[in-house]
């Protein structure tokens, strides 16, 4: 119940930010009073101006604008994109799938490798764990932008191993037999970059939490009692650290959405990121607002799912 209440607050806050932000920034078209509308009219193309007036009602007072905005939201009406001349909601639903695909698969792969690896290195006695930790710590601080450009430069342009852009070869359709393979081929590079960016933090935080738990008295006690090692590792260490690890992966997942959007731009992947770039470049306000809202809500949903899972795993955690 508490989680639900929190989620509703988040949604309201995100909606208010997406409503208020453009009105708070000096120099934005929202900043004009309706008496100055003719100035705006000279700044924008005629059709953009018309749809702007039609959707935002700049002649009405701000609180009323907010009510209209909320009412439109409930009808899933996010306005019309200036650039694409299409309803924003339609554009977003077309792109959201690719973004969700990339973020889920990349986090899945990263967690699938990172958590067992982190646990393995944390419980292993001796060995060269420091080397691995250093490699991952180093990798952790390399910005996604650098990884993305380097990988695209080397593997796609210089050596021509993978397609450099898009989610599928233009002209190929879902019903074609090679469609799935084609999509996978196009997804390999973006996923590779994302995994390189997401794996290190997941590995490091699993390693750190497991190492800390490993030295706790109840684990040491289990060792004195000669309980089998794999039982200790899974039942004592992993099971007790999993809620903590998951709550950190939750945050990593939220950060990863940013990374996904970015990678989409570099590889011209047809997700929200590419839409974002076009929207920002062409200053397409309704589209920008829609993207802020949809990505924000995507983040909220992810957060909700994780909190529910964590609560299930560990009823003692107070949300």
């Amino acid at each position: 119940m508490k989680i639900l209440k929190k989620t509703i607050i988040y949604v309201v806050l995100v909606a208010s930010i997406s409503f208020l932000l453009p009105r708070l920034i000096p120099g934005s078209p929202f900043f004009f009073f309706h008496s100055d509308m003719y100035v705006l009219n000279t700044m924008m193309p005629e059709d953009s101006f018309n749809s702007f007036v039609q959707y935002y009602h700049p002649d009405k007072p701000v609180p009323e604008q907010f009510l209209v905005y909320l009412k439109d939201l409930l009808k899933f009406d996010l306005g019309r994109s200036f650039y694409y001349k299409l309803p924003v909601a339609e554009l977003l639903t077309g792109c959201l799938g690719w973004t969700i695909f990339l973020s889920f698969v990349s986090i899945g792969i990263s967690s699938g490798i990172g958590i067992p690896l982190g646990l393995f290195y944390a419980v292993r006695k001796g060995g060269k764990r420091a080397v691995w930790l250093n490699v991952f710590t180093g990798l952790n601080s390399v910005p996604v932008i650098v990884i993305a450009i380097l990988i695209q430069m080397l593997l796609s342009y210089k050596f021509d191993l993978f397609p450099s852009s898009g989610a599928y070869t233009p002209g190929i359709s879902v019903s074609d037999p090679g469609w799935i393979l084609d999509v996978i081929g196009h997804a390999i590079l973006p996923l590779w970059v994302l995994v390189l960016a997401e794996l290190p933090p997941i590995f490091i935080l699993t390693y750190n939490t497991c190492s800390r738990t490993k030295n706790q008295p109840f684990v040491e006690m289990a060792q004195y009692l000669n309980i089998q090692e794999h039982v200790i590792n899974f039942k004592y260490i992993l099971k007790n650290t999993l809620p903590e690890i998951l709550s950190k992966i939750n945050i990593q997942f939220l950060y990863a959405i940013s990374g996904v959007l970015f990678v989409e731009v570099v590889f011209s992947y047809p997700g929200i990121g590419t839409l974002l770039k076009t929207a920002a470049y062409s200053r397409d306000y309704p589209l920008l607002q829609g993207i802020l809202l949809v990505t924000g809500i995507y983040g909220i949903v992810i957060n909700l799912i994780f909190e529910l899972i964590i609560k299930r795993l560990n009823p003692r955690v107070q949300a």
Partner: protein
Amino acid sequence: MIIFRSNKGSWIIILVMALIGLTYPLISPYEAGDFSFDSLVSPSFDHFLGTDEMGHDILSMLLVGFRVSIGIAIAASVLATLIGTVLAIIAAYYKGLVDRMIVRMTEVFILVPEIVVLLFITAIAKPTVYNSILAIVFFSWSKITRIIRAKALSVIELEKVQYTLLLKGNIFDITLKMWRELYPAVATMFVFLCGKAAVYESTLAFFGIGDPLAKSWGQIMRNALDYEGIFSGNTYLWYLLPPLLCILIFVLAISRVAYNVDEIRS
């Protein structure tokens, strides 16, 4: 990579880079805005990193980038650290409703992808360096607030701080009393954010909505990628890679210095 292992080495790298940023007019071979040279010259003694498609000397542009990129990073980080720390201390001091409101705000800023907020603001505002800095500050403060608030909440429970609370010390007295314990976290977060801000700035330039006149590293990378034939020859080696490496080295050195930030976070 060896050099990044030691903190000292990282400090030296950062200081040297900052020094280059401060003194680049003295060491720059040409005016950065001078495009009178032949275009797309390969590296030579006249042009160490060659020239771009317009005929700018790439090395000179790169040197300007030291000042612009590092300057933006530091300015944004100073502002965000200041705002973030003040809010964190307010949250820890007043607790209750004030604390809850501040926490909810920081959480919302984690839920909304930062890149969207960044582009949102810069797309709507005029593309100036000043606005880029403000956009970076706008969502960065929440990271600082989250971590410093957690720290402040534990420090405020220390008996020496409780003593001041018992005598109705105001928020300044309390901050003064806590500063010794808070300072390391604040300093680390500041350094950490410097690296982040440098990356954000180049991201903005990469998206093509930074200040087109500010010759930052990101802007040079954007120009390089916009040039059609960047990958057809070896041009990318002295056009795209140097600014990329500058950012990489700067960020790596910074992350070495701010290494213990993970400890604070967990």
